């Protein structure tokens, strides 16, 4: 809004400050690590190297990133209609179910080329359907979306256990997993894809769905800011009375936003079920739906921000695993703690350093006047 006499260049806001925040997080984590005599700097090095250092590491990082992009976008789209969708977890779960059922039914008969679009469609449809019920209840019965989506997470979990244990499990198998899909039901891994072009890459779970995630980012960006439906969603989100005045039906918009949101969450199923495990199984969502909330909000509900936040989380997951692997003293809970600190400093306390940093910047630039108050 109001412009400062000294223009704070964008790189300070989008580059410098986030880096400082993450540094702070690692500083605090360092204290903990130091306490269990693990060398903090080495730890950081392991995390960074383990996350980006070589092709396999990068593969895993991007594989996690893919999931976070899907769930982050899901939360963001709902948020633009001022709907707080905590149900990403359940929608992802059911989306995966859709993919699984579809492929189990079709892979004997259809080729990959046909199955892929069907699978994408099914994951979207199932995810959307699971979001549509809470959406309907919010729009037409006034029941609060936060409660209903929480409840639907639990219901989804129960449903999946029932299906996996009683219906979809392979006879005589110990683990509640479906049979493995036929080749036609496998989404190619990126290392295979690179292989086709003769590029040799170390195997990792990273698969084609990362491309789909990128496409989704673009689609969401266009959808929210460059289509009339996005315009309507944002209008309802910002000012419902104005929306009614503009001839927009908030009920329909709520349904639309939540269905898109659910569909996006459902795509986690493509990555996990079709891309990595090639079978239907329990708990493949592993909390990605919940983390998506933090991802979306840290990314300010904008695809670019969400991609960056997802990368951050991807780094924490993969790099953290490497740290736990390399440093016997570092337990996985230690890694979780570090993740918490990073979210705290680069998410919740994101603005803490803004004032000081900008002031020092201004001082360095040699101006005395205080820069503008930041936007809330």
């Amino acid at each position, binding site marked *: 809004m109001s412009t400062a006499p000294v223009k704070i260049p964008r790189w300070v806001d989008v580059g410098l400050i986030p880096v400082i925040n993450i540094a702070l997080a690692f500083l605090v984590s360092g204290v903990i690590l130091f306490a269990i005599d693990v060398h903090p700097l080495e730890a950081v090095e392991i995390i960074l190297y383990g996350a980006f250092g070589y092709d396999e590491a990068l593969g*895993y990082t991007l*594989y996690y990133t893919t999931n976070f992009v899907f769930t982050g976008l899901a939360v963001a789209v709902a948020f633009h209609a001022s709907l707080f969708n905590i149900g990403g977890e359940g929608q992802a779960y059911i989306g995966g179910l859709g993919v699984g059922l579809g492929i189990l039914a079709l892979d004997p008969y259809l080729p990959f080329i046909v199955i892929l679009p069907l699978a994408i469609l099914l994951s979207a449809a199932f995810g959307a359907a699971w979001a549509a019920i809470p959406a309907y209840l919010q729009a037409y019965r006034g029941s609060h979306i936060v409660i209903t989506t929480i409840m639907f997470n*639990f219901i989804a*979990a*129960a449903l*999946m*256990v029932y299906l996996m*244990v009683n219906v979809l*499990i392979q*006879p*005589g*198998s*110990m*683990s*509640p*997993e479906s049979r*493995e899909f036929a080749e036609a039901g496998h989404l190619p891994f990126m290392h295979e894809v690179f292989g086709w072009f003769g590029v040799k890459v170390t195997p990792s*779970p990273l698969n084609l769905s990362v491309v789909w995630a990128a496409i989704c980012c673009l689609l969401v960006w266009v959808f929210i800011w460059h289509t009339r439906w996005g315009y309507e969603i944002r209008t309802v989100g910002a000012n419902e009375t104005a929306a009614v005045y503009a001839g927009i039906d908030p009920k329909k918009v709520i349904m639309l936003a939540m269905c898109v949101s659910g569909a996006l969450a459902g795509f986690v199923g493509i990555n*996990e079920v079709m891309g*990595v*495990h090639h*079978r239907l*199984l329990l*708990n*493949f969502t*592993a909390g990605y739906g919940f983390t998506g909330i933090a991802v979306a909000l840290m990314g300010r509900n904008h695809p670019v921000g969400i991609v960056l936040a997802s990368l951050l989380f991807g780094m924490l997951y993969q790099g953290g*695993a490497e740290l*736990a*692997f390399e440093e*016997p003293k570092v*337990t*996985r809970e230690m890694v979780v703690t570090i993740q918490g600190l990073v979210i705290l400093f680069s998410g919740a306390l994101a603005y803490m350093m803004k004032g000081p940093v900008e002031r020092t910047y201004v001082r360095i630039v040699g101006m005395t006047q205080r820069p503008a108050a930041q936007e809330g």
Partner: protein
Amino acid sequence: AAEVNPAVVFDMGGKFDKSFNEGVFNGVERFKKETGVEYREFEVTNETQREQALRRMAQRGANPVIGVGFAQAPALEKVAKEFPKTRFAIIDAVVDLPNVRSIVFKEHEGSFLVGMIAALKSETGKVGFVGGMDIPLIRKFACGYEQGAKYVSKDTEVVQNMTGTTPAAWNDPTRGSELAKSQFDRGVDVIYAAAGGTGVGVYQTAEDSGKLAIGVDSNQNYLHPGTMLTSMLKRVDVAAYKAFKDAHDDNWTSGIQVLGLAQDGVGWALDEYNKDLITNEMRAKVDQAAADIVAGVIDVHDYMASDSCSY
């Protein structure tokens, strides 16, 4: 002794899951103490890490590598193919490869015995079972337990509860305690818990309400002396220990090991903490049954055999 560089990949529950992961942990710790050989370890936090961890272990030249839990079977199969020189052991599942030792247990036999003990001890003729999640493995425990209880007397009533539908079900003592209370309210006076950390709540409630409980996997009698009637022992610790030790002593064998009563793979715990609770004739009856099972006189139905507990 041969040059070994052992490693273990624990499953989601983590090495302190009050269940088979913890059993394995105890086993490999014992190996470390005895031989002074360090081992690598990793606890997976999501489905995808299993394969990653196993492969990473193999890449780092770990050998042998233990994968804990049936859930690791697909991943381990894949990795074992990639590293035919590396020796793998998988617990609770069968992976049929030349370089893999598969160790499975007859939990139903052990559960049968503790089921008998429960029924023999029960005054109300009602015994309880609390499982973590409703998955085949747990049904296998429940099924054996039920058979044991009914074996003592046809009309023993077995009340079964499952804790939840998410992994949280393995760490929910509060819910465990509520389930236990509800079973006690229904007249149950002995509860067998196969629910990891959730069991903690079951045992505590049993103590608080002066009833009895039965531990699982490792010997948990010491937790609440006077309340813990016994524990169903599933010697994953021994299995894990032996896997490392065999490699260490150069007499590793691949192939499938089915550990039941006969092989002392399963059993029930009797120690100073519960000896006062187990009368001699109880003990006699149970030992007899154990012998019969080993001899094949008693055939304990395995849930996995028919995917159902009809016997």
